[in-house]
């Protein structure tokens, strides 16, 4: 009798502990609470804040954070290190900047009386080039800013990923790609503003725009979370961990990589487009490898593969730059270089990653303790019951 009930009880315990699968919730409570707090902090700044420069920084940092998020998607989740993501950011930015500048020039003639952007005039152009005419329409420009980089990413993805070119080769090729775009922009200054970039088309810093950028950031964040929590997200992680095994389990690894690369580029382009409108200045620096790698470090500091990490890292590093670079001047660069080294050697999981791992370990340990406690409790009761049944029955059945 005792053994039968024992086995039933054992099965019950086993079933109970077996059937629970721990999943990180879509939005863990600390993230929800912290996130709402930060959103309120940023969103309400126009009301309590007095510094216009800080307001402009907030919008800028949000755009940077979205860019870092796009890098986290391909690097943290899928393991592709691309040193040229700024290409997509920059293309998105240039499309919008050109459109805004073209329209601005119509209403603000240059000193020579021309109705075309100043950098075009300096370079001898007398009218807006044909292929840029469509950009006069802002809506067209927005569509271009979002679609063209994504198509370029698709092209790149098909060329490299379908031939299993990953890792270092991919990093180097994206580095070169980014460099070449930079040089193109500098060289063809009649069309791009060259070294000076596109400036003076009035920025659109305003509370409304800030909220728009914030809303876009939240939507991208949620979208990225949904992606990484879907089965596709788990597949992406498995590709990152062992692409050989994933392929031999039937997954077309190249297609998954291409997909996530396009999503990432779309995000980067959107960030760039908003950035151009917000900041009012776009230059070749926004398309180059230096910017790309900076964003990689923000992601690494915050925690790669965590979706929250890029936001944390961007605001942390850029915020530190805001406070420190004035004081430190050249030494800030040395600090940044040191940060690269530090993050790689000592902080591979980043801040959020370290917190998450600590939480996971704690939870596993608690699970084990709880299970052991439960087992102890039941076996104790089992022993009590068997001892009682060993004693002679005092009552009549």
């Amino acid at each position: 009798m005792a053994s039968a009930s024992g086995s039933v009880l054992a099965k019950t315990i086993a079933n109970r502990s077996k059937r629970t699968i721990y999943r990180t919730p879509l939005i863990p409570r600390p993230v929800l609470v912290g996130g709402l707090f930060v959103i309120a902090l940023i969103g309400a700044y126009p009301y309590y804040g007095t510094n216009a420069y800080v307001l402009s920084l907030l919008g800028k940092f949000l755009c940077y954070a979205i860019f870092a998020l796009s890098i986290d998607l391909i690097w943290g989740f899928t393991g592709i290190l691309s040193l040229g993501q700024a290409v997509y950011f920059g293309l998105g930015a240039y499309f919008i900047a050109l459109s805004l500048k073209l329209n601005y020039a119509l209403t603000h003639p240059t000193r020579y009386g021309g109705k075309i952007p100043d950098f075009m005039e300096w370079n001898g152009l007398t009218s807006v080039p044909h292929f840029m005419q469509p950009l006069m329409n802002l809506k067209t420009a927005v569509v271009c800013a979002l679609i063209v980089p994504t198509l370029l990413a698709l092209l790149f993805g098909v060329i490299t990923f379908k031939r299993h070119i990953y890792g270092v080769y991919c990093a180097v090729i994206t580095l070169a790609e980014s460099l070449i775009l930079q040089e193109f922009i500098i060289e063809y200054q009649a069309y791009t503003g060259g070294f000076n970039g596109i400036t003076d088309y009035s920025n659109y810093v305003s509370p409304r725009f800030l909220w728009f950028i914030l809303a876009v950031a939240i939507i991208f964040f949620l979208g990225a979370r949904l992606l990484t929590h879907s089965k596709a997200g788990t597949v992406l992680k498995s590709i990152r961990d062992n692409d050989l095994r994933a392929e031999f389990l039937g997954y077309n690894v190249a297609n998954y990589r291409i997909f996530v690369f396009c999503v990432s580029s779309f995000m980067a382009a959107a960030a760039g487009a908003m950035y151009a409108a917000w900041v009012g200045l776009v230059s070749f620096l926004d398309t180059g490898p230096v910017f790309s790698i900076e964003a990689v470090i923000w992601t690494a500091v915050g925690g790669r593969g965590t979706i929250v990490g890029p936001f944390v890292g961007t605001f942390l590093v850029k915020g530190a730059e805001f406070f420190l670079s004035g004081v430190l001047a050249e030494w800030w660069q040395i600090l940044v270089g040191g940060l690269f080294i530090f993050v790689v050697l000592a902080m591979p999981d980043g801040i959020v990653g370290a917190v998450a791992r600590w939480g996971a370990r704690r939870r596993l340990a608690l699970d084990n303790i709880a299970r052991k406690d439960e087992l102890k409790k039941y076996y104790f009761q089992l022993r009590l019951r068997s001892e009682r049944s060993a004693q002679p029955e005092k009552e009549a059945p």
Partner: protein
Amino acid sequence: MFTQSIITQFFNGFSVVAILIIAAVGLAIIFGVAGVINMAHGEFMMIGAYVAAVVDKLGGNTLLAIPVSFAVVGALGLLVERSIIRWIYHRPLETLLATWGVGIILQTIVKLIFGPELYYVGTPKFLAGGFRLIGRLPFPWYRLFLIIVAAALMALVFYVIFHTDLGLQVRAVRRNRAIASCLGIDTARVDMTIFVFGSGLAGVAGAVLAPIKSVSTTMGFPYAVDSYMVLVLGGVGNLWGVVAGASLIGEAETILSFVFNNVIGELLVFLFIVIVIRIVPKGIFGYYERR
């Protein structure tokens, strides 16, 4: 007339090829054996060039600058290797990021010491001028010097790799690291030696570059990127890959930049590399490795 210019450009390209070979061979060994991508390679070259500038100021010439640069940058490489690289061998993406940081630090430090202005190092007097190759084609003595240095370096590397004990160890570690260490080879020391040697070569590249390019803190980066492209195109694991990659890229860049302009030339070379990689993903001489 056009053909003549193309031929001129072809011979001009020899300089570029020679410099690329010198710059890339160090990188090739380091990546091929130790699995390290040194993003500070350009900065190492830059420091080699600054050393040459200092030597020049002190009255020496390029011939003296070469071994001095080798020593200085080699020592720098040792410092970087001992403090940073040795913890992250065989994780190329990590070394990529960490050495990028090193590069930033080096650039900033040099800028703090030497200031942002450009330095000019003259070619050694006995190498000034040139001779006439076929017909009226001018051929600077310095270019011949570069070719000789590149060839000598390749010969040196070949000799070390294939005819010395150290080279034997390097080849063993390259083939099968685990077994090599079982056989008593100190793989950590091999990695360190490789890194230091490769860094020294980068210094030499900078030293021979100084007379023909103005010395500034950002001069190294384009050569670093070109060196990686040489590795990507030529393949890692075979020294002939360096020669092949450098030759193709150097010549293509020179000729195409002449026909079109610098930027289009680079773009075309880049597209060419991408197309070749599509066909031969591991590079022309990269051998087919089992996954």
